[in-house]
């Protein structure tokens, strides 16, 4: 392990998390959502806007830029900012890059936010995608995330015998967690019968395989581990942060392997842990299938066994907030924030006893050929 990587391990921390309420219609702008989530996260940390010298977000032309958010909160001349183009595959990369900026001494307190009106204003699959690759999909009415994940889910079913009931168990288990999460949009428990009876969206995926289009925002505060120890909340250390590439929907690679498979060894190596050390996993769940494929690609089970493994309940608790399927879809930062809650021990009725190490992941790289992830540790 390179010394510089060892220096990065646990050098920075998440000192605060903040939320707006989640809804189907926020009634306010993404700029307002961003400001509210940031103020909430700073308050959680015991900090204020005058302490902030870095701002980061990711977006796909659907949200307020850091260059709007900074002035709106009176954060003048920040030392560092990041306006990352991209969706769920880079949600965790912005936190990792903030940690790099802090570890390098370029910034001291960075707020990372994601604000979306994903139901009332900018519905996924509606906005034009600037990638030239979409020209090969659009003539067929194909290309929406649910369609692309359905194609991969079918491939996995054909190759490994993965069943609808395996997907269903992911949906049922996450709803059970959401029932214990006051923030969650969907808290009424569901059964396998409910799952199987839900209407097809893009076969083999059903309505209850899909995330909830949500209006809301989440923010997290990144600072040095040293400074975080003096703040209001117990620090959560950033032990590993990784991002990188894989194959796109037009690449010839094996379609049941995501970019996460290449990233996972780097991430674990950076943090000095392995899959067996993960106490809680908040895995990007735009669709149930993405949980199953990540259980494989992050090494919790062998390739092809993700379906039965997920249904068995083996491995760490997954998506303890209910995930995008039941808490709400804030594009990845709500998974980071939940991991922080679990490691601080303040997750209430859904607390995983003794959680010390968490994995949180971004979209595993099926749509844009890249992903990102974090390993966090109780400070």
């Amino acid at each position, binding site marked *: 392990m390179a010394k510089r990587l060892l220096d990065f391990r646990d050098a920075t921390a998440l000192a605060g998390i903040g939320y707006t309420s989640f809804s189907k219609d926020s009634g306010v702008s993404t700029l307002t959502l961003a400001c509210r989530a940031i103020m909430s996260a700073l308050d959680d940390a015991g900090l204020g806007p005058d302490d902030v010298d870095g701002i980061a977000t990711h977006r796909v032309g659907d949200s307020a830029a850091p260059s709007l958010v900074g002035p709106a909160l009176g954060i003048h001349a920040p030392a560092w900012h990041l306006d990352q183009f991209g969706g769920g595959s880079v949600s965790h990369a912005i936190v990792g890059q903030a940690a790099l900026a802090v570890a390098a001494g370029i910034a001291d307190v960075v707020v990372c936010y994601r604000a979306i009106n994903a139901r009332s204003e900018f519905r996924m*699959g509606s906005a034009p995608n600037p990638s*030239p690759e979409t020209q090969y999909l659009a003539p*067929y009415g194909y290309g929406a995330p649910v369609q692309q994940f359905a194609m991969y889910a079918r491939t996995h079913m*054909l190759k490994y015998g993965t069943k609808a009931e395996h997907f269903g168990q992911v949906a049922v288990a996450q709803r059970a967690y959401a029932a214990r999460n006051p923030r969650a949009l969907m808290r009424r428990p569901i059964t396998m019968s409910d799952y199987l009876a839900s209407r*097809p969206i893009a076969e083999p995926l059903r309505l209850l395989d899909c995330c909830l289009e949500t209006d809301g925002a989440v923010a997290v505060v990144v600072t040095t581990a040293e400074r975080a120890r003096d703040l209001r909340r117990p620090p959560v250390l950033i032990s590993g942060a990784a991002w990188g590439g894989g194959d796109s929907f037009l690449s010839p690679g094996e379609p049941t392997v995501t970019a996460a498979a290449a990233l996972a060894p780097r991430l674990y190596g950076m943090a000095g842990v392995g899959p067996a050390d993960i106490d809680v996993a908040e895995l990007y769940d735009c669709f149930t299938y993405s949980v199953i494929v990540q259980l494989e690609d992050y090494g919790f089970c062998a390739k092809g066994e993700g379906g039965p493994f997920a249904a068995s309940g083996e491995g760490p608790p997954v998506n303890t907030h209910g995930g995008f399927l039941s808490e709400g879809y804030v594009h990845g930062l709500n998974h980071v924030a939940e991991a922080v809650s679990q490691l601080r021990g303040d997750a209430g009725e859904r607390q995983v006893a003794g959680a010390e190490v968490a994995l949180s992941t971004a979209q595993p790289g099926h749509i844009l050929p890249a992903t990102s992830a974090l390993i966090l540790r109780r400070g």
Partner: protein
Amino acid sequence: MDRDSAEWWELVAKGVLAVQRCDSCGLARFPARAFCAACRTEGWSWARLAPLGVVESWIVSHWRAPEPFTVVRVRPAEAPGCVMYGTWRGEREPRQGERVVPLFTDQPSIEWRPADASGSDA
């Protein structure tokens, strides 16, 4: 369509299934790109392929459409390292590994139908 792909679409409009072939190492590549990802050289020629593909996967999409429709993921028989998509034109659901032939539309676009004549279960 972008500048890299314009010639490919012109071939589709003429009813030709083609991919690029690297002049240096022979690798078949799609979609159209200036550089070979294997040997990183620029020289290439169009390779006309037999009008035949193999079904890898498919979906039946109900998403924001009045009627469900099926989209297939296909690998050209003569360029199995390349992936293409298209609307399914069969009477029944596709089958994994089945052979399909392209239908060239005026749009232009490529759709796929079963290579067996009927495309039905009969």
